[in-house]
């Protein structure tokens, strides 16, 4: 644990916990893993989420989903924009935290700035992606037929291991702007930014349960993320969940949608197709009276 460099007083260290249903509980399992900083000194004891924590998070995400999806696009855009405001406000904290987890100063600052801009980018899509991706279908019969997007529901995100903040922010923003709720598993080697980001979410008026953030071991949790029957989509950002006959096979349990983002460059993934990847298309037919 580091000391404050500019004064002799002992710095008050933060306890990094999970973020479930708008609250910050420790893992129900009582487990933790130690995160070492430079020189092998302890940076933090991080909560090591269990399968039960994940299930609790899914319950929270499910409970929040319909109201979140029913909120107006304008409101969802403002809430995501508000997250950007909160992150801007704390940008030096996030940059320092990324440095603490091994990023260079320049890259840390750049990642935080890109994350803020990414939130603004997706906030702006809230009331536009539907107009870009939906359709009126000129059917041959006498019907008014249209197709529009609806959120898949609960989206589980195995966030990228390396892009601990920008990648996480991109995945969360792209999912929630379209009315999904999220359970995200943070980068295992750089988990602190995710929990601090959860604090930003809470301060940013994101309704409880819309975003839930877990820290823990990817190898342990991957199969549960993939196989849970009440999760609609699994977003994978690294190859480790994806090898053939690996944990991703569990997605077949409930024909869960599997979104592979392992090849994405997070710096250039300001992209509305990410929103569409966690949307269903619903086609509705109405007769036209003759």
């Amino acid at each position, binding site marked *: 644990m580091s000391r404050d460099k500019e004064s002799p007083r002992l710095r008050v260290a933060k306890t990094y916990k999970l973020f479930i249903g708008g609250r910050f509980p420790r893992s129900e399992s009582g487990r933790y893993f130690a995160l070492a900083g430079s020189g092998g000194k302890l940076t933090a004891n991080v909560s090591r989420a269990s399968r039960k924590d994940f299930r609790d998070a899914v319950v929270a995400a499910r409970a929040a989903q319909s109201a979140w999806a029913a909120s107006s696009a304008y409101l969802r855009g403002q809430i995501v924009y508000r997250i950007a405001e909160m992150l801007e406000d704390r940008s030096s904290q996030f940059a320092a935290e990324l440095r603490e987890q091994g990023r260079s100063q320049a890259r840390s600052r750049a990642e935080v700035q890109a994350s803020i801009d990414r939130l603004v980018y997706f906030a702006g899509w809230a009331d536009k992606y539907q107009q870009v991706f939906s359709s009126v279908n000129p059917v041959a019969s006498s019907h008014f037929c249209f197709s529009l997007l609806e959120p898949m529901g609960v989206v589980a995100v195995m966030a990228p291991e390396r892009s601990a903040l920008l990648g996480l922010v991109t995945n969360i923003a792209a999912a929630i702007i379209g009315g999904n709720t999220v359970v995200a598993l943070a980068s295992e080697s750089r988990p602190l930014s995710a929990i601090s980001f959860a604090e930003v979410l809470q301060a940013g008026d994101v309704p409880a349960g819309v975003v839930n953030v877990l820290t823990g071991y990817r190898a342990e949790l991957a199969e549960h993320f993939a196989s849970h029957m009440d999760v*609609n989509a699994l977003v994978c950002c690294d190859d480790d969940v*994806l090898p053939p006959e*690996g944990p*991703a096979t569990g997605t077949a349990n409930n024909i869960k949608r599997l979104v592979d983002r392992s090849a994405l460059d997070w710096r250039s993934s300001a992209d509305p197709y990410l929103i569409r990847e966690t949307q269903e*298309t619903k*086609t509705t*037919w*109405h007769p036209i009276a003759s």
Partner: protein
Amino acid sequence: MSDNDPTSETWQYAAAPEATDHILLDERYELFIGGRFVAPRKHDYRETVNPATEDSLAQWAAADSDDIDTAVKAARKAQRSTWGKMKPAERGKYLFRIARMIQERAREFAVIESMDGGKPIRESRDVDVPLAAAHFFYYAGWADKLTYAFPGTDPQPLGVAGQIIPWNFPLLMAAWKIAPALATGNTVVLKPAETTPLTALKLAELVQEADLPAGVVNVVTGDGTAGAALVANGGIDKLAFTGSTAVGREIQQRLAGTTTRYTLELGGKAANIVFADAAIDEAVEGIVNAIFFNQGHVCCAGSRLLVQESVADELLAKLKSRMATLVVGDPLDKNTDIGAINSREQWQRIQRYLELGVDEGASLYQTDSPIPERGYYCAPSLFTGVSQSHRVVQEEIFGPVLTVQTFRTFDEGLTKANNTPYGLSGGVWTDKGSKIFKMSSQLRAGVIWANTFNKFDPTAPFGGYKESGVGREGGLHGLDAYVELGRRGARR
């Protein structure tokens, strides 16, 4: 009985069979690989049976994994050497040509479809074949316009698509699969269902006559092991499957995490919800169309009727009366409403569910319309006295079997409708527009028919939520399954 009783003698129809003398079927059909009809390596041939007569129609070749591999390689070669390099507008012209040739031979395709699969000629003639031609015509026009379908991207073909189709709409499903794949520059290996191979093989002949470059379309007939071999063949870039959720699950298990992309169109157990303010007579017609269209062999069939309690008695009486007028019999007769069940196996499956429903305590109502002695037939059936937990309410029967439940409030209707692992389609019947939108936006299903049912069009995306599948077919959205959205910076 009054004079206008629909079941009385005055309403009986004279036989009106469609002519079959112009239909030319070979005794034996080979595999269509690399632009030629070739014998399967193991010289394994099977019979396809007319389910209306139980007579054999022709022999078809059963492909094994080596045959499948040969077809995949032929498709790869064609994708690299001709089809992938061709100007998109020229690809489109081939598809327009195929659409026109299907129209020219429409009646022939319709008759063969009804002979091989048992569906009424009225449906194969007025629905399956025209829609198949329309699909090719629709996707033909997309071939040189793909950048408008995916703004800001540079859509590229995936390569070779393996496609496995079911027996309920054999030609139409072939068109659904082949047209968008070809329009986007992919080549295909299509495996038809083993009980209905003939129209796909006839389509292969047509493709040959249309001078499509060799290997762009390959048709490999076979049973489930051939389908499994296609799924497991490492040479495909994409797998498109329409069939049961059980097989779809196996496919996802196999392909999740591989570089092979997949789309799945799986089972359904759609709710058809009738509110008290609906036009009841129209709703009755819609209910009949929803469940008895194509003998109920429809993944999006409205197999669960949910009717608001205050009109349940009136509606059920009218429904039973309407059911009594349905003509069950010769698929080739133009008056037939309900043709033959597709196969002996499926007929047995439906019988098991009918027995199961009775065992579970439900009341079974079947019409007593005359049924031919030969062939596989099932009278239109409905179960009352069922609850949400009954297996006949939860499981897809894929036959002319309707379950009837009632509800009082909007929320009860919605909850019952969504209480299923499936989410392919749904129907809403009410006179109130706002109620339609409220219900249709809360039903967790990919296709909603409001005051109508079982409508299809090439421009209209189709596909399921939840365990009814992944991805969409049809419309602009149907292109998505066959392209890689290359875009600057964002992708590899």
